[in-house]
């Protein structure tokens, strides 16, 4: 019973299903109740599940994550919303020093089934702190899992899987894709949470992306096809762990790799992918792994974000550079 729905709605439906299925699941955050969240991702949930399950919190991010840790210790499975990417930093301490380490610290006695939802990335013309992509800052921390869906169907299923995970999952939602629609089949058997997907087959070069950049890479592949180039597109879906086996298999076929993300390139996830794929595929590569992403600069004001964000031409340029080797 597949239904076409926007990504925001798919996440909403997924949360609804989790709240219905497991009485220990809670939804928490600023404005998630009556308002339904600033993106309406939690719309209607409080009305149907009550203020005890869908909790409007004080405006305090560390408090949101810190109390979620306590609730998890009590046996609950909180799904907390950080309103925007740039607002996660007041909670960064709780996420990094507590949430990520509680399982190891307790020698496995304590589980931390907490999902931290972060609407992230640019392209919506927002003000400062509303457009960032901090995934690498979290991926560097052992104990956290980082995922980012690129479409409504994955958004639905990956949320189910994130909630069921006994590990803390940082769930980055590409806010510029919230309104993109796709078929969501609530009866399907989903792919594993941390498995990358080949979303377009190709033979000349691999484009690897996740979250908001997958759609762009598909557009790039379409444009390149018109020029007679066959690009393979990977939706990585998970930033930690990263599915290097799928990337490796693709690169062994195409012999070229361009990684695309919105976050700054410097010390970003593309750097990790480039380094490991170089180790794994050194003799297969015809060109160095190239990266396209943001600059080492604060996310710019909205009127400049088109210059900052990877776009069709910048990715195509990287494709040309790779193919020129």
């Amino acid at each position, binding site marked *: 019973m597949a239904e076409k729905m926007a990504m925001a709605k798919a996440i909403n439906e997924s949360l609804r299903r989790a709240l219905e299925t497991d009485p220990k699941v809670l939804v928490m955050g600023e404005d998630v109740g009556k308002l339904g969240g600033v993106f309406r991702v939690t719309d209607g949930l409080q009305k149907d599940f009550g203020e*005890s399950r869908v909790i409007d*919190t*004080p405006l*305090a991010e*560390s*408090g949101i*994550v*810190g*109390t*979620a*840790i*306590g*609730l*998890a*210790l*009590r*046996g*609950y499975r909180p799904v907390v919303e950080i309103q925007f990417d740039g607002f996660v930093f*007041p909670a960064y*301490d*709780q996420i990094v*020093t*507590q949430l990520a*380490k509680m*399982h*190891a*610290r*307790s*020698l*496995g*006695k*304590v*589980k*931390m089934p907490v999902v931290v939802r972060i609407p992230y990335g640019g392209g919506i013309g927002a003000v400062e702190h509303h457009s960032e992509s901090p995934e690498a800052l979290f991926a560097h921390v*052992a*104990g956290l*899992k980082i995922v980012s869906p690129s479409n409504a169907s994955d958004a639905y299923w990956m949320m189910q899987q994130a909630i069921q*995970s*006994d*590990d803390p999952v940082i769930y980055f939602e590409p806010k510029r894709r919230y309104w993109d629609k796709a078929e969501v089949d609530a009866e399907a058997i989903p792919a594993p949470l*941390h498995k990358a997907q080949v979303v377009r087959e190709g033979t000349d070069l691999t484009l690897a992306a996740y979250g908001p950049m997958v759609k762009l890479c598909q557009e790039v592949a379409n444009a390149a096809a018109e020029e007679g180039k066959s690009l393979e597109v990977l939706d990585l879906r998970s930033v*930690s*762990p*990263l*599915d*290097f086996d799928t990337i490796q298999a693709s690169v062994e076929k195409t012999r070229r790799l361009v990684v695309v993300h919105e976050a700054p390139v410097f010390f970003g996830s593309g750097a990790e992918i480039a380094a490991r794929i170089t180790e794994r595929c050194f003799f297969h590569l015809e060109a160095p792994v190239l990266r396209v992403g943001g600059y080492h600069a604060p996310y710019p004001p909205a009127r400049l974000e088109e210059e900052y964000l990877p776009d069709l031409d910048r990715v195509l340029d990287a494709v040309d550079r790779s193919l020129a080797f």
Partner: protein
Amino acid sequence: MTVDSSAARKPRRSAAGKAGTTGSKAGTAGAKSGTAGNASGTTGTKRTTRTSRAAAKKSTEPELVQLLTPEGKRVKNAEYDAYVAGVTPEDLRGLYRDMVLTRRFDAEATALQRQGELGLWASLLGQEAAQIGSGRALRDDDYVFPTYREHGVAWCRGVDPTNLLGMFRGVNNGGWDPNSNNFQLYTIVIGSQTLHATGYAMGITKDGADSAVIAYFGDGASSQGDVAESFTFSAVYNAPVVFFCQNNQWAISEPTEKQSRVPLYQRAQGFGFPGVRVDGNDVLACLAVTRWALERARSGEGPTLVEAYTYRMGAHTTSDDPTRYRHDDERAAWEAKDPILRLRRYLEAANHADEGFFAELETESEALGKRVREAVRAMPDPDHFAIFENVYADGHALVDEERAQFAAYQASFADASEGGR
């Protein structure tokens, strides 16, 4: 029976009390009149600062709940006596035993650090009454969120004291199952655990249970945002949590004046719940006040802040050198208020304990020291592969890959299996 929150916070004295109690407005007014009464212009600014600092300092003079004086005399307290009315001589001896054994354990750990057996130790010397009094007020189904100095509370919860030493020896980052004794692992980051306590308490409410939670933290932690946020959350959700601040006067080298211009217990007022200051060297008063606060929590009246006014007799940790920032006479003044000595005086004066009791306890105390010493020395280093264990509950491809690399590397050493490592 509960004590009205305003009673605990009622201003009882003149300028100093007002400045502290009613906050910055009154403080400013006091300072202004000071300036006007003196001299003019530019020096007035300085004087204003001095005056208000003096007022702030004066207001930190203890106005606290006390049931046992430093001389061991039982004093009446209309509000809190009821909470220790059922305490028998045997109970008192139990509290005394707890404090003595905890101090002995602590002394042994300090010695073990000096001998190189522990990498670090955070001594509780001087804070035994605050910890034993509050710890013995708890029910088994209550849950404790400690910082890293709550060895006495751990003792009350039945955590084997040798388990506390693993992280200080460097063999683990925890060492006990928090759910076995409802005693969460030590938290090193200052104040983080107050939010965990609040969340846990919110869960208790959701479960419809009548357990309570107690969160321990220090005077330094009271400056942390997490502590303020935990006050906000617990108040908003009426969470059954007791915030037990052990004000031991020093946050490493910084005195309490560097943390707050008002007495710490008064912080609660701004969050809408009661705060009370108790003599933290008086085990009976700590027991009574914590029982009162726990009862409030259980009966749905929400959070309470208890400030146990005490003193850290030793260093912050064994890495610290308190002679650089505080005077010996300060310690001497607090030694006169020693928590163990005052209860002993009371027990002796009331004929609640005889020489045999004290002698037996001395023997038990030495046996504990010996057991701890031997246990630490026998503590094995963790297996090398422990690095990769329990990083994730559900596993992680990178951890698996790196574990395999590590194994291959370890195996590459010749004769590793023959002890040639």
